[in-house]
């Protein structure tokens, strides 16, 4: 289709969608209102199960099955990153010596921040995972912090250092086993909020490491033959 035809179709669809959305929006309950029946029902359950953070209670107890799906999506996408970005690894092994990892091209300010933040970040990550049942945060938020913290090494140092502390097969196995543990916990022992937070933290952390690792590989591979 020509650019013009595409924009015409978009104009029709966009105006229509805007109209539909606006019609619906003005029939929504008033902003900031007090009627949240489902939300209210979850509150006493969370308190009765000693999970003061109601969101953790919903995610890991009352609606644990949703989170099961979410963790599997995470695992699937980490596997997909390994799968889809794999060929360069084969190319790299084929023509050893022709490839090398380039230096980190980041701002100096970022480099210094990397140095400073690493230990603090890891501590924070563990804390967030451990206190997820009680205060805001939990396995997911902590896992993201832990998974990205490792990559601060790259900002502050160089790629080989990162590659050494990041054995891919271990993270693959760890991630999959954590997801497996979550399947068991969610279907058979829902409500073990602390254990589930820990498992999710492990899984999310590993998935973030795996995915970022694959992208780093793609981005930093210098082709010497060009």
């Amino acid at each position, binding site marked *: *289709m020509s650019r013009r035809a*595409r*924009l015409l*179709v*978009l104009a*029709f*669809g966009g*105006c*229509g*969608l805007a*109209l*539909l959305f606006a*019609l*619906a929006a*003005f*029939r*929504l*309950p008033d902003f900031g209102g007090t*009627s*949240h*029946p*489902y939300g209210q*029902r*979850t509150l006493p*359950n969370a308190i009765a199960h000693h999970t003061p953070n109601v969101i953790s209670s919903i995610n890991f*107890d*009352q*609606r*644990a*099955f*949703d989170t099961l*799906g*979410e963790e*599997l*999506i995470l*695992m*699937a*996408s980490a*596997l*997909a990153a*390994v*799968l*889809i*970005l*794999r*060929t360069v690894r084969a190319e790299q092994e084929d023509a050893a010596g022709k490839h090398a990892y380039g230096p980190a091209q980041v701002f100096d300010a970022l480099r210094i921040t990397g140095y400073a933040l690493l230990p603090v970040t890891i501590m924070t990550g563990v804390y967030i995972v451990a206190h997820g049942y009680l205060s805001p945060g939990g396995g997911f938020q902590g896992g993201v912090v832990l998974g990205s913290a490792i990559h601060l090494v790259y900002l502050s140092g160089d790629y080989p250092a990162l590659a050494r502390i990041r054995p891919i*097969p271990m993270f*693959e*196995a760890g*991630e*999959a*086993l954590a*997801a*497996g543990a979550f*399947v*068991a916990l969610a*279907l*058979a022992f*829902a*409500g073990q909020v602390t254990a589930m937070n820990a498992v999710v933290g492990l899984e999310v952390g590993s998935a973030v490491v795996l995915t970022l690792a694959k992208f780093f590989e793609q981005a930093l591979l210098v082709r010497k033959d060009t």
Partner: protein
Amino acid sequence: MILQIAVGLPFAVATLLAATGRRLPRIAIDAIATATVATLSVLLGLVLAGGDRTVWLGGWGEGVGISLVADAVATGLALTVTAVALCALVVSWRYFNEVQAIFHTLVLLFTGAMCAFVLTGDLFDAFVFFELMSVVAYALTGYQSEEPDTVHGALNFGVVNSLGAYLTLTGIALVYARTGQLGFVSIGRHLHGHDALVTVSFALICTGFLVKAAAVPFHFWLADAHAVAPTPVCMLFSGVMVELGVYAVARTYLTSFADAIPAEPVRVSLIAFGSAAALLGGVMCVLQRHIKRLLAYSTISHVGLLLVGVGLLHEDALAGAAWYLIGHAGVKAGLFVGAGALLNRFETVDEHDLHGRGRSMYVAGLIFLLGGLGLAGLPPSGTWAGKALIEEAGGHSILALGVTASALTAGAVLRVWLRVFRGAGPPHPGTTQHHDAETEFKLSRLPWTMLAPGVLLVLAGLLLGLLPGVVIGRAVEPFTHLPGPAPAPWTATSIASGVVAVLLAFGVAALGIRGRIPRVDLLHRLHSGHIGDYVAWLVAGVTVFGLLLLA
């Protein structure tokens, strides 16, 4: 407990395979994956035999937790999913250069996600498993990531489907704001009367499902993805995944919105989208020479008919749609096995290229012949029985639509059979497009595991019409909340329409082999592979759907 085990089993095994994939030998991976899906189908069979049940996960009960609803339609559909998945796994025994155990892990996740999506009684949970299904599907489509077309097709698939899913979530948020509920049943209980909010939220929720069901104009991704996905994955896509979109539309309307939104606008819009897909898919199918794309467009056409069957909102037509779905799953998955066999032998699926080269492939030829007859709806195939009920409920125009769509798609498949396996018609120069044979190294002959599942699937599809109609009727009763239907496909009209469709299909095939396959520039330009076009059409489709519902 059996339901929880059934839902959890494929996921648990998938995680174990992913964890140990680097160490296990290939044969163990194959055996574990196949055994898991076989066990799953036994479990689902037990559930089906045990009658309808609802299980609240974690013991939370209505209003707080998530339920699994195993009524006959949901369980039967899950069983169909596992049956096709089992065949796909057997076909893949000799397929592929496996990367660790990722292929099998993904297929198990895919199977589990489809089962969970079908069985869940909660709208948001359905969204989550819809997304799991989609993410795994993108990854499987892009499996052979060294081919340019593959990654391009997978990307188009991913963007269009994800946007559809986000619109679904927007709709879920709107209906949650109104009712404060997420269960299908409890939403239905809390929706009284209809207004713009309810209508728009229904339209948005259905958008994601219609994208999955490839209703026109949401269909563009399907051919791009099917043409490039590995054969066993195509079996799952065309056989069951696309059809789940139609199932989700039916479930959303009948369980949650039936009391709020009047039937007439829903009927009009679903029939409009379905008919457009049935016709456009049929025409595009005849215009293809790439056999996997041809089969992909035939899926669009047949799923369009399925949507019409649901859209009639008539108890007999819904029974027909259920019947049609399983019949079509068998025939189409089988046909993809045949296409995979051609790809493996000749490393091409271009019809002109393959002229006469399939003469010695008796089994693959048989699959194409029987598959073509199945698509045409030869009695007593499942497609015939289902279509007969839909046509009976829909009247003359639907009858004409059904016969046209079947004749076009079956005609194209029979043309492939005549040209490739019988060497009919004059030869034409093909393209030079070369494909991967999909196996690690060239096999000297096709192993039985690559063909037998195809024959079984096609035969199952061709004989499913022999099921007594009362079984299907009783199954859909709790699903439709309509008085028990008494489906009886064996009437003079239906047999006549089946035979006419088969004859017309042979006519289309005979016309097709006389010359080159024509190009229709307008249609080719429309299916441009340009992601901007696809997304523009998607929002235009939402607008049309919303306006039809509001009118």
